[in-house]
């Protein structure tokens, strides 16, 4: 009987350590512990060009991550890119005239949405829309313009 008891303990330890391993992966390794998408509110921003923005790209204000991009779609009427931003509910004091721009982290890093607060007293609510937006800077376009310009100057 003693033998089966130690065996049971070892099996129990094994199962427990496996579950601890899974828990470690979930909490420490993935983003589950830091951010959950459910407790937040959604606002919309329309861009002329959202560049390389992807679903789950970060949304930050003053360099601090406050949410994630939850959906990107194309509006067939205005030919704009409609980006849904899911903002963490603890940051619910964004003014109505907030500016949204698509920035790139570093020269070749991933793209993110940067929010810059305005001066209005009205707050952005769930389902609200950001009026002032600035499109992504397309590197190829910028280089093209630069080359074109320098060629003109040489003439």
């Amino acid at each position: 009987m003693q033998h089966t008891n130690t065996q049971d303990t070892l099996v129990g330890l094994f199962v427990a350590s496996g579950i601890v391993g899974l828990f470690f992966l979930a909490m420490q390794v993935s983003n589950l512990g830091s951010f959950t998408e459910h407790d937040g509110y959604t606002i919309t921003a329309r861009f002329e060009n959202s560049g390389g923005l992807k679903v789950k790209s970060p949304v930050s204000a003053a360099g601090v991550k406050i949410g994630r991009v939850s959906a990107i779609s194309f509006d067939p009427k205005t030919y704009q890119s409609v980006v849904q931003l899911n903002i963490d509910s603890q940051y619910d004091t964004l003014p109505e005239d907030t500016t949204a721009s698509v920035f790139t982290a570093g020269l070749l890093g991933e793209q993110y949405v940067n929010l810059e607060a305005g001066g209005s007293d009205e707050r952005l609510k769930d389902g609200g829309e950001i009026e002032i937006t600035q499109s992504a800077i397309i590197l190829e376009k910028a280089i093209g313009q630069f080359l074109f310009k320098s060629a003109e100057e040489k003439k």
Partner: protein
Amino acid sequence: MIEFLQHLGKNTRTGFTKLGRGSFFLLQTLSGILSVLARPRLLFNQMYSVGVLSFLIITISGLFVGMVLGLQGYYILSDFGAEETLGVMVAASLVRELGPVVAALLFAGRAGSALTAEIGLMKATEQLSGMEMMAVDPIKRIISPRFLAGFLSMPLLAALFSAVGIIGGQMVGSGLLGVDEGAYWSQMQAKLDFQDDIINGVIKSIVFGFVASWIALFEGYDAIPTSEGVSRATTRTVVNSAFSILGLDFILTALMFGDN
């Protein structure tokens, strides 16, 4: 030429016959699982021999695989000045691929071959027929508990492998090579998704556990009951498990991570 065709046809037929027997065997095993739940003692004993005894090889291999990933990743990433993303590289490669696959290969080698040899020997020494004589169903009594134990142990072992590997990568990366510890974890947490990475890795290990246990048990049950037959069956277990695991891994990866 005719002989070659005859040979080919015969081999194909035996292959399909074996697959058919294997599928039938799997169905019998699955239907026997309910009666295992009524007698958990059988399951615990098998969890011990399949899971607990594989614990050491899995954790030590995981530690070393993680350490090697940390070392190699550091040399490559430091060329681009991106040492801080070492955590992402180590964790993503372990959780998505190496954890489930290497743990499953080790599992097939450590536990699968033992299962085949055990059952093949039971068959060779006519213990299985003896049980049938006593009106004990060997599938329910012998096969199903082992199958369930392998199926349950595999995800736990793969998770342990990944977790220990990530810690090993951190030990080498920030302990030995000077990557910032905070960046190692925070970059990892920012880039790895629970749903896309962790859950998909767990699904992979469940599939591999299912297939590896099935192959090991079937090869043992189907072995020619001689000492040579058992040794061949054990070899086939390891070879076929490795093929199936790596092939399935490609299919699963294409299905899971294909769209990003």
